[in-house]
């Protein structure tokens, strides 16, 4: 009786111990499994996030690239039409040189520039069309020579021999500078905008 009781007791004890151990091991295994699962989920969600970020960036990059490309194409087109305006204005120089204001301006420049020189030799370059008019303005001043420059459309260039200085009053130069400062306004006129 005592022996059987003792046996039962020790068996129960061992059973309990095994049960506890088993449940501990089970808990640990579940914990390990969960940890492993979480780690994998975390790792993959991180990778997925990275992929999403990368893909988003690629799309954004493509979008920005296209926008910039578009902007550049539009600007190239605008520039083309502004240059067309320039060519038309350049063609109108022929009309400007026929006006009285033009003759008065040339006369003013020559009298002002030549008044400042004394014995210095001076050469005035002008377009072939203006030669007669300029010779008339210069009169019989022996220090001044008038020469033609085929490339000039209008206006004059005055060369001072002693200093090697040329003062440029050619219409092309003035047009270039004025036109450059007007580009924004011309763009507004052609394509709208403030």
């Amino acid at each position, binding site marked *: 009786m005592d022996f059987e009781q003792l046996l039962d007791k020790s068996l129960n004890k061992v059973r309990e111990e095994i049960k506890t151990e088993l449940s501990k091991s089970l808990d640990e295994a579940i914990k390990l499994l969960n940890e492993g699962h979480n780690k994998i989920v975390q790792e993959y969600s991180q990778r997925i996030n990275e992929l999403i970020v990368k893909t988003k960036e690629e799309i*954004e990059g493509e979008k920005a690239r296209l926008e910039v490309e578009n902007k550049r194409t539009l600007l190239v087109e605008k520039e083309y039409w502004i240059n067309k305006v320039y060519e038309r204005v350049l063609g109108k120089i022929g009309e400007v040189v026929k006006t009285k204001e033009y003759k008065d301006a040339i006369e003013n420049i020559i009298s002002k520039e030549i008044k400042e020189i004394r014995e210095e030799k001076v050469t005035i370059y002008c377009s072939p069309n203006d030669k007669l008019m300029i010779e008339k303005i210069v009169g019989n001043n022996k220090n001044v020579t008038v020469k033609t420059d085929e490339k000039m459309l209008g206006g004059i260039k005055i060369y001072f021999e002693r200093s*090697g200085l040329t003062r440029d009053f050619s219409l092309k130069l003035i047009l270039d500078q004025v036109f450059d400062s007007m580009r924004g306004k011309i763009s507004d006129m052609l394509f709208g905008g403030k």
Partner: protein
Amino acid sequence: MLSVREFSNISMIKGPLVYVQGVTDASYNELVEIEMPNGERRRGLVIDSQMGIAIVQVFEGTTGVSPTGTKIRMLGRGLEVKISEEMLGRIFNPLGDSLDNGPPVIKGEKRDINGSPLNPAAREYPEEFIQTGISAIDGLNALLRGQKLPIFSGSGLPANMLAAQIAKQATVRGEESNFAVVFAAIGARYDDALFFRKFFEETGAINRVAMIVSLANEPPVMKTLTPKTALTLAEYLAFEQDMHVLAILIDMTNYCEALREISAAREEVPGRGGYPGYMYTDLATIYERAGKVIGKKGSITQMPILTMPNDDITHPIPDLTGYITEGQIVLDRALYNKGIYPPINVLMSLSRLAKDGIGEGKTRDDHKDVSNQLFASYARAVDTRGLAAIIGEDSLSEVDRKYLLFGELFERKFVSQGFNENRSIETTLDIGWEILSVLPESELTNIKTQYIQKYHPNYRGKK
């Protein structure tokens, strides 16, 4: 009347300089056009005028310029560049010519690139935080709107990558749409210029970046003009278009080298390291073109990047830069060799204004405390490393060993981050807390208890 004068008497050509005889009325910094016998045109500036001789510095160099048959045209105006918001998304040289096969700027404002100094009384103190997405900067050396914070790099260190990453990621929180980057590449190598261009195009940042580029093989004067044109554009965008502009100037060492080259050609008395004696003033005229102006919505934040020759922080370039700017971010070769990117040495770095732009209502309430604690703990970790090298790690106390671990984690987890990783300030601070949690709580003496209870990983989730 347009005062254009043309001269043909060149008495001497020396390096990038042309000496023109018979000029008595040249103005200092007057723009000059040089027409060669073959019709090629170049531009230059009058940099000196004495005894009827004007000294002209030619932008494109003097190679091929002959004293006979060349015409020098004085244009009667200073160097002005047409500036416009059209320049965003595009690439230009410092003279305003396009480098991306596009047309020149059509609609814009012609501005003298030398700018004019800001009235000190009109300046507003920088107080708003700029998020660069880089923990070592945002967390410990925060950049503020209107601040000038240089990066001191060394040869071969990844300053280009860092600059590109900052340009891509930097943002003023809540005002993302009004943010622009003006990127000045000064004397950049061709592959560097290509890297920046491709990077901005591929990451979608190009839309808000305007690039002003001069290449390494261009004459020195082009390099000295680059930051000036870039800052002129930055000023226009900030103070006329109300934008928040980040101006990145890379590499200011190339700028100073160009300054030295020109100074030597002008036969000026050299100063320290052969650099001109006026380099401090010259650099100040660039660095001081940053800030906020009372009554204006926009701002210019400047991030000049320079290479310290031989990693020497006492070299005249970083030395003079450090006098003018409001702190510095220092890149470290030892960290770089450990494989850490970005290799920012936080102990050598400093943002003098950071304290005024972080904390409650600006970034996060615990920012200042966490920042102070990270600095203090990392400094101790570095000291402990020295000690461990002498007495061995086993002889260290338990706490000291934790500091060693903290130092390692700080470099590997906090400072180190991916080239494409853009961390919000919250993420940065959370990483800070995570690595601080390896230290015993009693060591966190720089952080208020309320923040420890609010943000420390041990307390998070507990009520």
